[in-house]
């Protein structure tokens, strides 16, 4: 008994050293990544004065909910929240559909000119028209200041499409198509009945990628939208956050500008929390698809 225990310790010494060192490094990394989030959370529950005078270090100081009350009272924020949800939902649906309907044909070996098509798609990943031509394009398409300008530009993400294509190519055997064709299945039916159900994992990944992108997008809204009631949450948030970063030497009346700052201090942290929580919640659910293989058993049946 004693001997065995001794043996086990002596054999795993290298492991032990490894575990201690890697455990230590990982803990340091974890603290570094976690601290800002804990700080934001604590600050959002603290009083404005405590935040702006730097009293919040780890735990909330002068606990209160003023920030959250302001967030949920503010019509702009609620409307922007709704807009973001809408843009994310519709935008993601378009992104995922586009990626799939492009990726599937390109994954088929019997598609003629496949290499050339891929080249064209890939080309757009490295070269874009630039900001001004894009602006003129959007303007001539009459998309300016509409709902669609938030979901249509970049409808197809070439990167996601390539990932999807590779997935379909490698995980769905070509023989399945042959078998299905012999049974009288046409291409459309094959796509909906075989490819889609077998691509759940990649659909989940795609959905997560695009949803996060849409959730965080602010640049298009900034450039193309002119009405306040169309703006997504990120733009309203940015508006509040930049109040804190004014360059005082540029202002005509700095004393007046300083007065604006305090009221914003708490609100901004509450807003960050409110804006981040939905995406944080979505991660664990999508994550299982990253790990779990879907192909187990599918060919056998």
């Amino acid at each position: 008994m004693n001997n065995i225990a001794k043996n086990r310790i002596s054999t795993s010494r290298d492991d032990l050293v490894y575990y201690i060192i890697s455990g230590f490094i990982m803990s340091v990394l974890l603290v570094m990544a976690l601290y800002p989030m804990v700080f934001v959370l604590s600050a959002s529950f603290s009083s404005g004065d405590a935040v702006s005078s730097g009293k919040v270090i780890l735990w909330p100081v002068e606990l209160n909910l003023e920030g959250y009350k302001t967030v949920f009272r503010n019509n702009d924020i609620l409307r922007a929240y709704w807009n973001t949800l809408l843009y994310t939902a519709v935008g993601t649906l378009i992104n995922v559909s586009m990626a799939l309907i492009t990726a599937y044909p390109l994954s088929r070996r019997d598609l003629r000119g496949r290499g050339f098509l891929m080249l064209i798609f890939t080309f757009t990943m490295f070269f874009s028209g630039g900001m001004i031509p894009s602006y003129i394009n959007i303007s001539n398409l009459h998309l300016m200041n509409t709902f669609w300008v938030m979901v249509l530009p970049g409808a197809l993400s070439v990167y996601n499409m390539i990932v999807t294509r590779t997935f379909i190519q490698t995980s769905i055997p070509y023989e399945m198509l042959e078998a299905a064709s012999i049974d009288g299945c046409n291409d459309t039916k094959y796509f909906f009945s075989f490819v889609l159900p077998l691509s759940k994992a990649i659909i989940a990944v795609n959905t997560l990628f695009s949803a996060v992108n849409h959730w965080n997008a602010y640049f298009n809204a900034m450039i193309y939208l002119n009405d306040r009631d169309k703006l997504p949450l990120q733009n309203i948030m940015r508006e509040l956050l930049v109040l804190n970063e004014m360059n005082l030497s540029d202002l005509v009346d700095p004393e007046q500008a300083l007065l604006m700052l305090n009221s914003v201090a708490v609100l901004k942290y509450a807003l960050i929390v409110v804006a981040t929580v939905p995406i944080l919640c979505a991660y664990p659910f999508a994550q299982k698809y990253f790990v779990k293989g879907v192909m187990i058993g599918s060919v056998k049946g």
Partner: protein
Amino acid sequence: MKRRIMRTGKKWLVCMLSTILACGAMGCGSTKEAADQSPAASAQADSSATSSSNEDNGAGETRTLSIAIPQNANVEDYETNYLTKWLEEEMNVDLEFVLLPATSEDANTKVSLWVSSNAELPDVLCMSLSDTVAQDYASKGIFVDLTDYYADPEIAVNINSSRFDEERDTIMNSIRFADGKYYSLFTYNPFPWNEASYRAWVNQEWLDSLGMEAPKTTDEFREMLEAFKNNDPNGNGKSDEIPMMSAKSGYGIDPTTFLMNAFIQTTPGADYMVVENGKLSPAFTTDQWKAGLTYIHDLVQDGLLSPLSFTQDSTQLKTQLTAAEAVVGVTCAGSTSMFGSEPEVVGRMALLEPLTGPEGVCGVSYRPSTAGCIWYITKDCEDPELAFRVGDWFFGEEQSWTARYGQKDVHWTDDPEITKDYLPMFEQYSPAKYVGTIYGSTDIWGQPQNEHWQGSHPYSTPLSEALYQSFAYKEDPDLDSKTNYNTTHLDIYYNKIPDEYVTKFLHTDEELDKLTDYSDMIEYVTSSMAEFITGNRSLDEWDSYLQTLDEMGLNEYVALRQSGFDRANAE
């Protein structure tokens, strides 16, 4: 198994079909909105409906003006704003707002996109632009020349009223472009408190407990700091006092400016230029400057001025200043907001008078209020005269007051019955002849509100009118209380402003171009200053410092600034 696949397949079929349908619907949707080609067009398309309904009222034709204005988190809705409604009613216009992003950087990106993509611009660009950008757009013909409108008292009604008689020259001087023309309306709100903003504050309780008088000279100042360090003024038995502490940046915060002004005129905002008989010379190459550096260096050396003052930011300083038990004796800060909102904490700090140096120099850093350009009328405006008139409307007395304080008789009043209690305390500081009183002890400025545009548009309260208004609260029971620093500031700072000073530098495009070659000059001066003071660099190296400046082209730089200075002061 197979059935299950079929079922999910159907679900997806529905999904895909609806997507395709949605795409189709989008196609139709966008053709309907064909008018949305450009920011201006969208605003005008919306408004055509409103204007026709207004005509029925017999109020004459309501014209539309589209205004590009940066979003402001504290303005709830420009469309339904009190000021907007009032303006629309009085001027019989319909304002359409095209919102720009809140940061000036993003807003500039958006505007430059409009300009470079040749989109139709909104009628008015209501934002501040940097001198360089504004000159560039003006020279491209993006902005309408307003010189003739300004000259016509029929059009520029309020600007030509007696309200601006005393300050019109100052204003017009500061908004003139390098080509001698005017392209913009302005915002001008002079305020002595902002003009001499590098203030020092002393802990009055500490002074009282040590039985000391506030210092008048640099030597007395040093003695006071030593007493703060050694005699435990906060009486807790520990030597935890920091005699003097400040921060490296922030509004009026830099610790050196206050002290250096006891040796030589020191004005960071004017590139530390000293003006004598209309000639500029740099302060930072003089022996007085060196003497000042030596004095401050000794303070740091002896533990009287915390070296953190040259590295920490204003938030870190605020943490120290707002501590319940006072630890800081003297600090430099432009705003009382650095002391937080606890009355006891704010109340214990008192303004410190500018110090007199060994050579009898006693000055303050002074930057006069200038008017800023903010209302540019663009080439695509069909009726620039109307756009000008609308901008001019804001310069009426009540309009300008509303722009700053909110509704008359709701948020402020000029009712003599009420103001008579407040006027006397400001009388000695002529030219104040009028004080408005704010109802309640809270000011809607800086709060989310729907009364005004938070000041981001042309308006003006000239010096002659409403000098000290923001500090006279109706419900403040004790107007002479310590927190009313404004009059003290006038007594001890504002009376020491130099006779000659830099108002602004007005450079041509060519000069602005050349100036970029010297962009790190002032940076070098300020960083060297910190190095000399903290002892990272010995003052024995003073000559090599002068030599480096020379090699960087100091003489050419001063010559460029001189021509900008001369142009700004030319009649």
